[in-house]
């Protein structure tokens, strides 16, 4: 079999502040005609850089060495004119975030026929015809209408379909799909991936499919290239991913750090369990110290009385309508993000709120925290009703009971405040402690989330994503709350880091009896950590019950669809 694309010892360095940083350290793989190769790895593994190197879209100042050939031709030697035709006719790219990758002020039709815009009348007409056919090919039911629409009028899934249509417009020989479904909901992901696979087969196109999700890659690809820190760990046949007994430890770790949809694991494995170094920059403590870290929590947190019958959080008839009729009686209809939601979070238990984007789960969490004013309904903590518009004193009282951990750890810490100072500020606000006591507590809190005491003096930018999220959890714990609201708190993290954070959360719960309200779209995470679950759709609760029951025998059709869409061993994406 001849290779369509061949990378041989490709190295990429970038210079940053006078330092040469290797991004790819000798990457070699082939893609045969008609083959689909998956690149899988965590952030920083170099998978996106590999894609960019293939497209010659490397950042300014990057230096490349090694050989890269496409159909026998050296990609590095292409001049500007040939490079354009290479990108136009040979290789097409599907980007991660379609909303960011499509010019927002141009119509979908313009985006699809951009290349023929300067052509003759006949050429433009032909391009239009072909674009409409392509849109039909990617399951868009009304191509004529979509052709004239702007990107913001379409959903993420529809847009990604348009991007795939654009990618196949010029009959490329290779499609590079860089995390094409990461920005999409899980049900949409299934459809888009199935479509991509089908279109690829139909037009006989090879594909490089990049994702952080091993199971997804295994379902789509013929071969899997596992990458880590700019190097290839190993290459596996996709159908032998689970049966291969000689897998590298890192591949094993990628597979088993994930929570399992089918059953709860006693404890998630982390990279350390596979003899791999967790985070290159710091502070990962060996597993043996977990108990010690856990022991510190009791000193920090007040052990909650779980015997009490009062619910930790009680929400009743909660409704939020955005942009209703204005003050002057404008006729805005308003969007109901959350509609008549009621539930109780029992003390010491974990309640998961599951739903896709637009289900209202984040709005719900924000209302509970007082960041959004409910249109209707009530919120009570431990039997005491919180005013709809909390005052400063209410917020301060609430902070001692309920705390929030945000989705994005990169933006929820003050970038100019050291971690220790962040914790100290919260401690000073809520407790009457002297400087020494606060320093001791800061250290205890960091130990609780398994962070090194040295982290206290570091600015957030010095920490990895997982460390930052643990620092955020430590800050949330600083006020010794009895309830933690976690808004997609592990969604932005790599699987190995996610495992660490989930383990830390389980430890804290076991030690202190704190209750979690766990907002997530990831059903495997629900299985791993939740006692009860609420499934939301379009702002309403469609199903609720004990997590095990709901996941094992879902009653609502939507819950079933959610479950079917989760990539797992033996899973195949479906177009509907």
């Amino acid at each position, binding site marked *: 079999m001849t290779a369509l694309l061949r990378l041989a010892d490709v190295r990429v360095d970038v210079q940053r*502040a006078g330092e040469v940083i290797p991004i790819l350290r000798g990457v070699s793989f082939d893609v045969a005609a008609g083959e689909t190769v998956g690149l899988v790895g965590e952030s920083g593994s170099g998978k996106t850089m590999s894609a960019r190197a293939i497209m010659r879209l490397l950042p300014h100042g990057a230096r490349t060495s090694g050989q890269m050939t496409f159909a026998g031709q050296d990609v590095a030697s292409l001049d500007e004119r040939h490079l354009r035709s290479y990108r136009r006719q040979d290789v097409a790219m599907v980007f991660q975030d379609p909303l960011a990758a499509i010019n927002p002020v141009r119509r979908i039709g313009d985006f699809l026929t951009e290349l023929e815009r300067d052509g003759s009348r006949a050429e433009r007409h032909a391009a239009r015809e072909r674009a409409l056919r392509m849109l039909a090919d990617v399951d868009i039911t009304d191509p004529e209408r979509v052709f004239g629409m702007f990107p913001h009028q379409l959903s993420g899934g529809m847009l990604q379909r348009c991007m795939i249509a654009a990618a196949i417009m010029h009959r490329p020989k290779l499609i590079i799909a860089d995390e094409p479904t990461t920005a999409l909901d899980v049900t949409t992901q299934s459809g888009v991936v199935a479509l991509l696979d089908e279109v690829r087969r139909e037009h006989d196109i090879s594909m490089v499919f990049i994702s952080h999700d091993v199971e997804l890659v295994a379902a789509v690809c013929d071969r899997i290239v596992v990458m880590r820190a700019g190097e290839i760990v190993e290459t596996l046949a996709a159908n032998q991913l689970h049966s291969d007994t000689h897998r590298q430890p890192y591949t094993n770790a990628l597979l088993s750090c994930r929570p399992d949809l089918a059953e709860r694991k006693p404890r998630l494995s982390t990279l350390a369990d596979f003899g791999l170094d967790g985070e290159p920059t710091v502070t990962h403590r060996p597993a043996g110290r977990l108990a010690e870290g856990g022991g510190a929590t009791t000193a920090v947190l007040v052990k909650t009385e779980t015997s009490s019958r009062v619910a930790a959080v009680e929400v009743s008839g909660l409704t939020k309508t955005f942009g209703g009729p204005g003050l002057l009686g404008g006729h805005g209809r308003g969007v109901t993000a959350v509609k008549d939601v009621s539930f109780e979070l029992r003390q010491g238990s974990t309640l998961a709120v599951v739903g896709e984007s637009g289900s209202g789960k984040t709005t719900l969490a924000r209302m509970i*925290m*007082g*960041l959004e004013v409910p249109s209707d309904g009530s919120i009570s903590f431990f039997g005491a009703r919180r005013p709809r518009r909390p005052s*400063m*004193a209410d*917020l*301060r*009282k*609430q*902070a001692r009971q309920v*705390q*929030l951990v*945000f*989705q*994005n750890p990169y*933006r*929820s*810490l*003050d*970038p*100019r*405040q050291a971690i220790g100072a962040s914790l100290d*500020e*919260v401690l000073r*606000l*809520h407790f009457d402690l002297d400087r020494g006591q606060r320093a001791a507590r800061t250290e205890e809190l960091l130990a609780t989330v398994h962070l090194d005491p040295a982290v206290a003096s570091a600015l957030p*930018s010095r920490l990895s994503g997982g460390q930052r999220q643990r620092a*955020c959890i430590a*800050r949330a714990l600083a*006020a010794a709350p009895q309830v933690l609201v976690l808004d997609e708190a592990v969604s932005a993290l790599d699987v190995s880091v996610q495992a660490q954070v989930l383990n830390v959360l389980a430890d804290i719960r076991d030690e202190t009896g704190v209750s979690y309200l766990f907002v997530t779209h990831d059903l495997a995470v629900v299985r791993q950590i939740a006692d009860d679950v609420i499934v939301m759709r379009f702002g309403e609760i469609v199903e609720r019950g004990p997590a095990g029951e709901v996941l094992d025998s879902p009653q609502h059709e939507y819950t079933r669809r959610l479950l079917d869409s989760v990539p797992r061993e033996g899973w195949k994406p479906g177009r509907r």
Partner: protein
Amino acid sequence: MSVLLVPRRSRKSLRVRLPAITWLALIVAVVLVLIALLAPLLAPHDPAATSVLNALQPASGAHPLGTDSSGRDLLSRLIYGSRTTLLGPLIVVGVSTVLGTALGILAAWRRGWVDAVIGRFFDLAFSFPAVLLALMFVAVLSPGLTTAALAVSVAYIPWLGRIIRASALREVNEPYVEALRIQGLRPLRICARHVVPNLAPLIIAQATTSIGFAIVDLAGISYLGLGVPDQTADWGKMVANGQGSIVRGHPQESLYAGIALVITVAAFIFLGDALTSDRDDDR
């Protein structure tokens, strides 16, 4: 104030290699400040001492840059003139930065009607040029450096305020600000301790750039005779005083003062630019 952050920032900037022009601007600015501080030691003559017999002398050993139409030593007047030339803009930048930052952040934090009122105030202040405001201030208060500087400050508030508001708007919507809010932290504290430090690079850059513009505006006001008292040495005033002598073939006074102004303004504007462009790498 935000000045506390300067050491941290400059340490960072020095680690990154600065372009030659920034170094030059920095050196010029430092030398100017030293000249202003050490004026009594550096000036060879009393800048106010007139001597009709020595009027319009060319450069000589006794008067390195010659004398003006009243026989006053030009070098000494230039040296002393640096004091008002730097002091005025310092007042302007101090007042307009503090008020502009406060109003900008207040508007961004409160939004709604507060934002609207502050926005209209900015529009209003924008519609009066600094010189026109100075005329009004002088008419109401007594003429002088402080009056002129206050007038220019008012004219600069919307300029800084708008830029700060735009950036503060983005900043106050960051999750970290929400995280602090739900701790029950007072808004004033969040703004002062978290938002301002995060905007500090922008604030410092804008303030530095506006020093340059303030020098020009204040010199213009002095030129019109609305700023410093007549006897005080001031570059803007020197340009005006020297005008009569230019036609008589003695351009020195206006020329030297003009050159001094150009160099000073350029130095501060280059510095401001360097700080602004450096800001992007900050996060």
